[in-house]
């Protein structure tokens, strides 16, 4: 028997979230997380001959189609496939996590009712599955970038920062939605519609540089546009993977938002810090509600 005997006390009070302590609990239960992610991936590709290759095919087809389309039609953003995918992969990670996470507790109702384990693992597993896809697709994209346009070495330093901001923000929103969706199933439907709108207010398929030209110097609108944390994240991805780009045509201008690298870094740090505060709040809310999940399902 272990030298230290753990003592657990359970009361009617919903426990207060102590982040450090809870992190240790989650780390102690990492096997469950790893197993759940493994399970989801296996189930996803079960009875398919190509398996995970399907995940790789998705960005490959995008790259092929848009390379072809821009060659033929010309006149769009320069290196549009790289521009599109560097933002789209981040978006896919975000939307797959929130969609999967919103259903994670409900879909595992049987586990929640019968097994005691930290409930955070369920939305985390949804994020984990999305991360695996993201990692595979990033490899494809990076290879493509190296093979065609080359990496922008100094700007690439923004990638970890943008990724960290994306991940923390995704975790925060996913935890919140997962907990709310247990009581109000509306949240799941709302999310579907919300994501549709969100996709189009984020510069993924269109040029953020053009948005900047339209908004002009009206700073309030520009700031408002950047209030969407995903705009900052996607701009970070664009900047680190795609670079600035120059729009064709008489006006010229940049394809991505024209701002100094340092400013973008500051914006991303702000998003990261804001997301951490947001995460602290949503995690606390998830943690407080999770004690009642078994009853509400």
């Amino acid at each position, binding site marked *: *028997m*272990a030298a230290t*005997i*753990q*003592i*657990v*006390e*359970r*009361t*009617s009070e*919903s426990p207060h979230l102590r982040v450090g302590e809870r992190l240790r609990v989650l780390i102690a239960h990492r*096997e*469950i997380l*790893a*197993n*759940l992610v*493994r*399970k989801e991936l*296996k*189930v996803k590709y*079960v*009875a398919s001959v190509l398996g995970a290759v399907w995940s790789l095919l998705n960005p490959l087809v995008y790259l092929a189609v848009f390379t072809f389309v821009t060659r033929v039609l010309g006149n769009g953003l320069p290196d549009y496939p790289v521009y599109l995918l560097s933002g789209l992969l981040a978006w896919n990670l975000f939307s797959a996590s929130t969609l999967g996470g919103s259903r994670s507790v409900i879909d595992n109702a*049987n*586990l*929640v*009712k*019968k*097994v*005691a*384990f930290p409930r955070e693992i369920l939305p985390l597993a949804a994020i984990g599955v999305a991360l695996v896809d993201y990692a595979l697709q990033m490899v494809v994209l990076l290879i493509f970038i190296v093979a065609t346009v080359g990496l922008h070495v100094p700007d690439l330093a923004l990638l970890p920062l943008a990724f960290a901001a994306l991940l923390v923000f995704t975790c925060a929103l996913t935890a919140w939605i997962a907990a709310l969706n247990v*009581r*109000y*199933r*509306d949240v799941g439907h709302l999310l579907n519609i919300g994501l549709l709108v969100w996709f189009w207010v984020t510069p993924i398929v269109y040029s953020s540089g053009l948005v900047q030209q339209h908004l002009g110097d009206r700073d309030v609108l520009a700031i408002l546009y950047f209030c969407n944390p995903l705009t900052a994240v996607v701009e970070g991805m664009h900047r680190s993977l795609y670079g600035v780009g120059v729009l064709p045509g008489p006006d010229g201008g940049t394809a991505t938002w024209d701002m100094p690298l340092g400013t973008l870094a500051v914006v991303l740090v702000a998003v990261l810090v804001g997301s951490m505060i947001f995460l602290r709040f949503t995690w606390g809310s998830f943690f407080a509600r999770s*004690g*009642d999940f*078994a*009853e509400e399902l």
Partner: protein
Amino acid sequence: MNVTAAPAIEVHGVSKRFHVFREKPSTVKQRLLTSRAKADDFWALRDVDLEIGEGTTFGLIGHNGSGKTTLLKCVAGILRPTSGTIRQRGRLAALLELGAGFHQELTGRENVYLNAAFLGLSRKQTDAVFDDIVAFAELEDFIDNQVKFYSSGMLVRLGFAVAVHVDPDVLLIDEVLAVGDEAFQAKCLDRIRTFQHEGRTIVLVTHALNTVIETCDRAAMLHHGELHAIGMPDDVVREMRYVLLGVTDPNFVPEEGTRQAEIAEVQIVPPPGSRQGRILRGDTFTIAIDVRQNEPVEDLDVDFAVLDGATNYPVMDARTSRAGLHLGRFDKKRVRFRIEGFPYDPGKYWVTVGLSSRETGHLYHVQTQRYMFEVYDAPRIQDRVDVSVAVEVDDL
């Protein structure tokens, strides 16, 4: 079994209230239109106090809906008590369901790892016991097949095999022992004994009262969410039987007598070859009574009575003196009453056993309604018999 002072589980004044919605509001619209007052309150547990000593095996009994599983879920941390505190020491594993998290599309092997993780085993620990698990489940040939191709029996065996290879200090088991065929159940009980010898604390929720008597050190009975009885398994199980049958006579004395002669053991032996030891209507079975004489008794008379469990009315009895038997002096003897075809309806029956003096009627030892057996309906294929059928035809 070493019973130390520090309890593994302490339950203090625990109550649990459920809101029972007629239809649960699960959208915002419904939530706004339905006031919370429409929910009915249901108290699954009321002010329960319990202490379960480290290294003991504790039986938790009670009829359906008495709150056993709710209490177990509160201890496991799946449910949060409405009031009161639960303190629990050591690593805990709760077996509320076999094969939790099993996924149809995964192979047996993958499911073992998944399920083991939920029960608190690391990948390395699972590696170490994996072969034992497969051998225990007797699934060596099928472990790499998807479990959707398993029979329900195979699934249950695999689920249990994982469950008994967990390594907790405290093990909560809810009814999961009642699975599989008899041989497999025996294997499971055997495994429980091993856990006991290893000094683990076990809490067993079950309807199998005999299992409680045979395996538990202590037991408690819940009744409508309240702690109705706690103590030695024998006493608690007897209390449970009285409550089940609605015996509420306060003058009821379960056991009396001067004990010059004593009832050592009573067995109700089903007919040989009966399925699962069941007694069917019309079966011939035996009530075997082992008697010990503590002091020489000359005129011992052994008798039993069978009472209908539904009504408490005696339906039959027999005694050795009526059969013309003189037992005389002895140290220990077994008296077998063979009931040649039990004619009464299916249901539960009590057995009262008594030792008395043939001459004076003095009571040496009586156990009133201490034993119970259940009679099942005999499955039968109806014979063809001639039934006269009247035929009438009317003009319309």
